[in-house]
């Protein structure tokens, strides 16, 4: 599934990374605890979170995540967007709750 298809699936909005939407992702990890993500998310995963501060970008970058999705209408801080641009990390947002977004993606991946 590509990031473009993901956006369609969760009614997502692109915050950063328009040029990378043709890329594929290989799974999803959901957590709002950064160390949990560091310990368990795999390279190429999409990460669903409600954390919006700029350390999210650092985590995504270190793990080579495919994209970060800010759920439940959360929008990233200005410093997060800026850092995302600098580092080329794909940032998406959706109004859907984490539960609903995950449910839709899960169904699509079956």
């Amino acid at each position, binding site marked *: 599934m590509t990031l473009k298809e993901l956006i369609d699936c969760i009614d997502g909005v692109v915050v950063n990374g328009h040029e990378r939407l043709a890329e594929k992702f290989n799974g999803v990890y959901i957590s*709002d*605890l*950064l*160390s*949990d993500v*560091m*310990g368990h998310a795999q*390279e190429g995963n999409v990460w669903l*979170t409600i*954390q919006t*501060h*700029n*350390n999210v*970008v*650092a*985590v995504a*970058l*270190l*793990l*080579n995540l495919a994209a970060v999705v800010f759920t439940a209408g959360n929008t990233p801080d200005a*410093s997060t967007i800026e850092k995302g641009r600098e*580092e080329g990390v794909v940032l998406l947002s959706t109004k859907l709750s984490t539960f609903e977004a995950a449910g839709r993606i899960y169904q699509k991946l079956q």
Partner: protein
Amino acid sequence: MILEIPVESYNFSAAGEAASRVKKTLQRLGIDSQLIRRVAIATYEAEMNIVIHSDGGKIILQVDEEEIKVQAIDQGKGIADLELAMKEGYSTAPDEVREMGFGAGMGLPNMKKCADRLEIKSVVNEGTTVVMGFKNQS
């Protein structure tokens, strides 16, 4: 080669930069990507510990043919009970830091999992030195 990167206490906007520099340096050296992943995760956790729990410190990266060594050295309150600190889920991080998603009590366990060797020396009210070694496969 040796790379020394200062880490500021409580500067969350810069947090992660030391780990990022370590990762980029290892990529330039052509280190295996799975090995870089382990070093990057462990370095990030060590860096966050300096940011959250100390008065400041530094990360030192040393690479030779046999080992990639990452040292995290800080000045500050130190670790009172190391055994307890190693326990998954145990954390002394303040609430405002936990709200940001840090302080889950998984930092040291993550470091232990990622590194091939982990040594921690800590003196209360002086500081902590963490040494992590990763076998260089290249």
